[in-house]
């Protein structure tokens, strides 16, 4: 096993665990009333965010749905800024105005955090359009759920991106359920990647539990986009372990199904790789301790940070004032 590969996996483990622990603690804070509104957890899907963040290059751009904590953290948002946002604090990544669904972190290429299903695909295409327009070589990644593949926003964004060969990668995180509805009741297709052909795109379809597999497939699509061969549509099989949001008890699936799926937990998978490679347990534990410290610091920060001032409301409506 190459040294480089093991180092990579250790980083992957650290990142995935950070996301997992961040969200477990945010669920707890939600129950304590410190977080309000909708909270959609990414638990079970972490390998995809981490693979994306470790495959793109500096300057590349990323758009995500409301299920955005994992992607933002993987791209480098600090847990402090992320947790403070959930607590509605001024030091949050959107200064407390956006909340869980509307993370933004432009420095790290994260362009949100969008609440309307299908609405952000055209925005991502627009970011890709900008790269092409300026003759620059950034690639834009756009994530969405399988539930978003029926809405007009999906179709129109894909149509234009395909027509204009925009440097984008459209990534469907198929976690099997759109809220309480399984894919079998929202699409006549079981293989969504065939939709790519209708837009003149390359389609690809694979399991997303193993971070290395995701990286490999993503890299091909990103390379295609960067070299001017146009956008791709990827369908990644994944699974969310929690309900759609905190208010969803998830009664539409059986406990057995959930247990079965948890066997493919991406964090278990990466741990298995580390152990198979003979990595020292102490090294793994050190990562776990480090993650705990970072999460604790984030919670402490979020607790202590100030709420935004009323003036922020008026300052942020429009850029120009009258």
């Amino acid at each position, binding site marked *: 096993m190459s040294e480089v590969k093991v180092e990579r996996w250790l980083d992957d483990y650290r990142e995935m665990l950070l996301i997992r622990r961040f969200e477990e603690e945010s669920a707890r804070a939600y129950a304590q009333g410190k977080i*309000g*509104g*909708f909270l959609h957890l990414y638990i079970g899907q972490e390998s995809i965010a981490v693979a994306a963040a470790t495959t793109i290059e500096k300057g590349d751009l990323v758009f995500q749905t409301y299920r955005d904590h994992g992607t933002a953290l993987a791209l480098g948002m600090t847990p402090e800024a992320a947790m403070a*946002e959930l607590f*509605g*604090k001024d030091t949050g990544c*959107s200064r*407390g*105005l*956006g*909340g*869980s*669904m*509307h993370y933004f972190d432009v420095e790290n290429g994260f362009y949100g955090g*969008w*609440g*309307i*299903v*299908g*609405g952000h695909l055209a925005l991502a295409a627009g970011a890709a359009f900008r790269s092409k327009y300026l003759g620059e070589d950034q690639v834009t990644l756009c994530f969405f759920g399988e*539930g*978003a593949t*029926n*809405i*007009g*926003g999906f179709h129109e964004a894909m149509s234009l991106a395909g027509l204009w060969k925009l440097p984008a990668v459209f990534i469907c995180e198929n976690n099997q359920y*759109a*809220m*309480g*509805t399984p894919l079998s*009741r*929202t*699409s006549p297709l079981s293989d969504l990647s065939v939709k790519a052909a209708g837009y003149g795109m390359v389609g690809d379809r694979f399991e997303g539990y193993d971070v290395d597999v995701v990286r490999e497939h993503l890299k091909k699509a990103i390379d295609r986009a960067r070299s001017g061969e146009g956008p791709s549509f990827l369908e990644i099989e994944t699974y969310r372990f929690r309900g759609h949001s905190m208010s969803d008890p998830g009664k*539409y699936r059986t406990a057995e199904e959930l247990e079965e799926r948890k066997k493919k937990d991406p964090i278990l998978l990466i741990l298995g790789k580390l152990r198979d490679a003979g990595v020292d347990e102490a090294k793994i534990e050190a990562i776990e301790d480090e993650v705990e410290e970072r999460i604790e610091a984030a919670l402490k920060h979020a607790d202590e940070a100030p*709420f*935004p001032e*009323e003036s*922020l*409301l*008026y300052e*942020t*409506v429009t850029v120009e004032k009258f």
Partner: protein
Amino acid sequence: MREITYREALREALFEEMRRDDRVFLMGEEVGHYDGAYKVSQGLLAEFGERRVIDTPIAEAGFAGIGIGAAMTGLRPIVEFMSWNFSFVAFDQIISNASKTYSMSGGKIKVPIVFRGPNGAAAQVAAQHSHTVEAFYAHIPGLWVANPSTPRDAKGLLKAAIRMDDPVVFLEGETLYNLKGEVPDASEDEIIPFGKARIAREGKDCTLIAWGAPFHTALAVADRLAKEAGIECDVIDPRTLRPIDETAILESVAKTNRCVIVHETWPYGGPGAEMVDLIQREAFDYLDAPVLRVGSLDVPMPYAKNLESLVLPTPERIETAIRRVTYREER
């Protein structure tokens, strides 16, 4: 009279009207197997089956349009938006098609359809999920707009809406679903007509008009001011915003000579402005003070709790407005 929740009242209306008429069906996201995102449609799938309780993919423009097409050709659809925020992707279907067909066809094609779902801010769901939409839809000739604030009105107005031969925008209060109130038995088959306001409280000092969630805030302020300051408000719930019950408003203002309008929408170009126009036009000589509006602050809804509660019409802002128009600002 028995008491049930606003949610149960709506559900009863759906059950009763679907039993009454096989052409009536319900369509929307999670309305069937999940029993409704807000459980309004609980039990409907079990009774009526998948032919009449239809789970849709997330495709609002598609299923709103399918509803309109079915209505044009003889069915009587009820289309549920998981929340009215998601009606915006179907705006074109409602505005360009549903509201125009009857006129554009020279009165030959009717569109008997109800679009319904929760309206208004819930708690901390931020800018994209907190819209109060009546200003958008009440603007459109060809639509009827209902906005019930109590369980009884919710049921009676929904039954009226389903029996109407026109497109209806039916705005349920997202934060009102658990509200309890008196509702007559099913045997009474109560239908509440559009365009008839409800006088919720009588008083001689100030007309207070409010609907939706802020109706309850406004009523509580009125009760308190009666006790604490001897200011007696006439509290009017218009119940529908297209049409508005002009008579009820004008009669009240003729009595009180003052008026405050409270709503959750932004004031700019909203239904409150429409009422102000009515009052200054038809009751100018009765007015002893400028008519004031209390709405959400003119900003997108913030997530942070401390800011969200400032944005929504607060009891403090309602009280200040009432005191200003009654010249009782000193406390």
